[in-house]
């Protein structure tokens, strides 16, 4: 029999993985281009609604919708990047904030208009429900699945960044943008691809999140705070940092609620403040 602390750790890590998927894209694009994209969660919401639409209206299986959630969110984000974001790269942070908040407003209204204001429940296949009982712990099947998906994605991401030519370009651009373009790296194109990748991951996170946190038009605002916290705590531009931050936030949230419920509403904010005072650039931040 294992003590409950393992159960808390497991739940916290699973919750953290959800946060990781939703925020890693923002972290990389912020680090790469210094573009403040507060509409990031709107792309996550796109993924969520794609999954709901495919399951409900076209009878797709849940697993089939996940790649589509990724793809559609990525494609939509490319459109926005081309038309609205690109002209603003050299403008002030504040203009970027205003633009992306505006886009978020529009996305929330559009979701309410097309899908209604209600919750969008999905029914998972039966084998994804319930839990395994292992040595006195309840291991939720879906949470296990979340952790597995995130592990695969983390390995793919780190592999891409560390081992491929494209990854080397991204790293170079994050480190020193001017030097990178001086060496002939097309920074804008690198950024566009990274941006689409990050938004696609957010879309995937949005689809995976429905089962845990639900989906309604306010999703784009509700999870923005959590995503920002993970990004800031992890440090800009770092995948490993985002992963560590997401796990830290997830575990401390769950542990706080379990051991000191009175602090339930405060704990993640306290953790964030503590980390940022200790390391203003985040766990893995360099600048």
């Amino acid at each position: 029999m294992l003590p409950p602390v393992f159960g808390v750790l497991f739940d916290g890590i699973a919750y953290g993985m959800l946060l990781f998927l939703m925020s890693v894209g923002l972290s990389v694009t912020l680090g790469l281009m210094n573009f403040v994209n507060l509409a990031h969660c709107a792309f996550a919401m796109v993924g969520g609604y794609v999954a709901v639409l495919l399951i409900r209206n076209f009878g797709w299986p849940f697993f089939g919708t996940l790649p589509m959630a990724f793809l559609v969110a990525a494609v939509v984000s490319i459109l926005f990047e081309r038309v609205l974001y690109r002209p603003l790269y050299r403008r002030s942070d504040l203009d970027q904030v205003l633009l992306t908040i505006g886009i978020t407003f529009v996305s929330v209204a559009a979701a309410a208009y097309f899908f209604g204001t209600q919750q969008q429940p999905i029914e998972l296949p039966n084998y994804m429900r319930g839990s395994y009982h292992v040595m006195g712990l309840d291991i939720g099947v879906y949470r296990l699945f979340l952790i597995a998906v995130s592990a695969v994605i983390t390995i793919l991401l780190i592999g891409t960044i560390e081992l491929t030519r494209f990854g080397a370009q991204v790293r170079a651009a994050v480190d020193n943008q001017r030097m990178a373009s001086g060496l002939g790296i097309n920074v804008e194109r690198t950024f566009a691809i990274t941006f689409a990748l990050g938004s696609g991951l957010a879309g995937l996170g949005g689809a995976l999140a429905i089962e845990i946190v639900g989906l309604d038009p306010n999703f784009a605002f509700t999870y923005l705070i959590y995503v920002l916290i993970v990004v800031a705590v992890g440090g800009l531009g770092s995948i490993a940092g985002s992963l560590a931050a997401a796990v830290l936030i997830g575990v401390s949230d769950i542990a706080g609620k379990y051991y000191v419920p009175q602090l339930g509403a405060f704990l993640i904010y306290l953790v964030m403040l503590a980390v940022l005072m200790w390391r203003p650039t985040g766990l893995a931040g360099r600048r």
Partner: protein
Amino acid sequence: MKRFGLASAALLAACLLSGASHAAGAIKVGVVMPYSGQFADLAKQMDNGIKIYMQQHGDKVADKTIEIIRKDVGGIDPPTAKRLAQELVVRDQVDILAGWLLTPNAIAGCSVSAEAKKFMVIMNAATSIITDKSPYCTRTSFTLPMITMALGQWAAKQGIKNDYTMTADYAPGHDAEEGFIDGFKEAGGEIVGSVRMAVKNPDFSAYVQRAKDLNPQSIFVFIPGGSQPAAFGKALAERGMSAQAIKVLGTQELADDAAIKSMGNDAVGIITAGNYNYNYDSAMNKEFVAAYRSISGDENPDFGAVGGYDGMHLIYTALRKTDGKTDAQELIAAAKGMKWESPRGPMMIDPTTRDVVQTIYISKVEDRGGKHLNAVIDSIPDVHDPVHAGQMK
């Protein structure tokens, strides 16, 4: 000083104007609700209830046309709610204030109702004290202690010996918790513990684990509607604490359609108390549900819809009694003691407290051949608000 002299002259002129406009033959009802933001879905329910009543009964009362003016307050925002109510009175010259989904907004609205002497109908907000804030204010929804106290008493009478309460840590949660504990203890039950859960809370697994460790015979849950009921239900199922293994008691939010659907089989056995269940068996309710489904794209009505519907019924009937006069004193007199049959069943307005009196239904999610149905299994008639009735502090 001169400016304020002028100002009062303008005020006087405007008052005269507003007096004149009443002769025009329209009665304006100003509806203040959060049509946008995180409470938009419940506002939609209430608004649909209003629409259905007007579809079924026309827009004429006592030879006057009822006109609805909708205002969005966007969320919990009493300064804006108060301004909107004031603007409805001075700009749109409404005769009646209605809607009111959220308690702080409703309290702000009441101060306008009291000052401008406007009849006010609360169609959802559920804290007891609101109706005390204006002598012209009445309510067609419910109060939370009314529901949870009835549930507590019922549960203890069913032989449930002990309970662990899990409520959202904000004012409605505190009301719900107190009501349940008072009712449950009074009928002989024992509370083994209570937890107040963070309001903005996407993941309930830790709280549910804590409940499981204590292994109570039952748990009582109050969480706001929206995304949380389904998340809570799933957390229960994951822990093997689904309603088949333990008695799960809650308010009606816990068994809303979205929650039941996303919980699937794990929802079976959840017991909830509420003032409305769309499966309630009456001809009137069947007609109401059918009408609701036809205007909402096959959504089912909930307590918000019936609150809006009955609010309009109260307004129509009171206006008929006053023969179309909108004087707040006369309207509230007409509302006091009014009894009627609603889609929710029989209900009335308490003549002294102006608060709602109604049947509280106990429902249970049942498996009917693979389809999940939240069926009414018991009912407690003539429930008054326990705070106003002096049963609670």
